[in-house]
């Protein structure tokens, strides 16, 4: 990786992690959506700096959709019954998770990983998605379809019950 890509990688990492932390701490729903969009842009930048432009393009669309959904004002508030102590325990557990994963990344022996694939471009990704792994792609497409239909049905049923 040359210096330009490395700079882009670290800048994108800072943007994505900072956006994620803003999602955690911003109180308003709309600002959380904007922060998630910023984090998504950072993740797209990470993909782009790692020469994964096609994945970055798809992730851009998906994270824009996630941000729009999170920022939408129509959803009701579902308060958790978990007390503040358990939230702090969860935060410490998240920090511990980062410690474990970072230790695994630091000490893990990833040098001997081998994958014998073909060329990397949009055509090869498309071949994998729509030829080699068609079933997984179709299953995810069906999951998206069911999720959107279910969300729409839930909205309509709730409106009718009022």
């Amino acid at each position, binding site marked *: 990786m040359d210096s330009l890509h490395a700079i882009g990688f670290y800048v994108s990492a800072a943007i994505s992690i900072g956006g994620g932390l803003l999602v955690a701490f911003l109180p308003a729903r709309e600002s959380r959506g904007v922060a998630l969009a910023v984090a998504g842009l950072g993740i797209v930048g990470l993909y782009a700096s790692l020469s994964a432009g096609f994945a970055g393009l798809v992730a851009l669309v998906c994270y824009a959709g996630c941000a729009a959904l999170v920022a939408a004002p129509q959803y009701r508030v579902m308060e958790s019954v978990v007390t503040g102590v358990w939230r702090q325990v969860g935060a410490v557990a*998240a920090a511990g998770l980062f410690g474990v994963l970072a230790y695994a990344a630091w000490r893990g022996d990833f040098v001997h990983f081998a994958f014998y694939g073909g060329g990397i471009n949009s055509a090869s990704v498309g071949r994998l998605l729509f030829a080699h792994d068609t079933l997984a792609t179709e299953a995810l497409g069906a999951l998206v379809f069911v999720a959107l239909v279910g969300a729409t049905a839930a909205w309509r049923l709730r409106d009718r019950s009022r």
Partner: protein
Amino acid sequence: MTAGLVSVLFVAAALVAVGAFVAVWKRDLTAALAGLPLMFGGAGVAFVGASRFAAAGGPPAFGQEVAVLLAVAALALVALGLGIAGRGTSR
């Protein structure tokens, strides 16, 4: 300046941890759903980085493929979760 596999995996671990933190820190369960795309994004970065740096015999597209599937799955999970939560008063 350069970035290697360990740097990529550190960033991926940080994204997963931040997503988990969002999921446990927010009181509103619909807001906690915003942590899922971050965790999935971290996993995708790890896959892409492993394919980018640890591949032999040419750059493979496997990591990109998994990252695409994870991004779509994150969108579907957020839509499904908010759909189950339903419409109501906003905050």
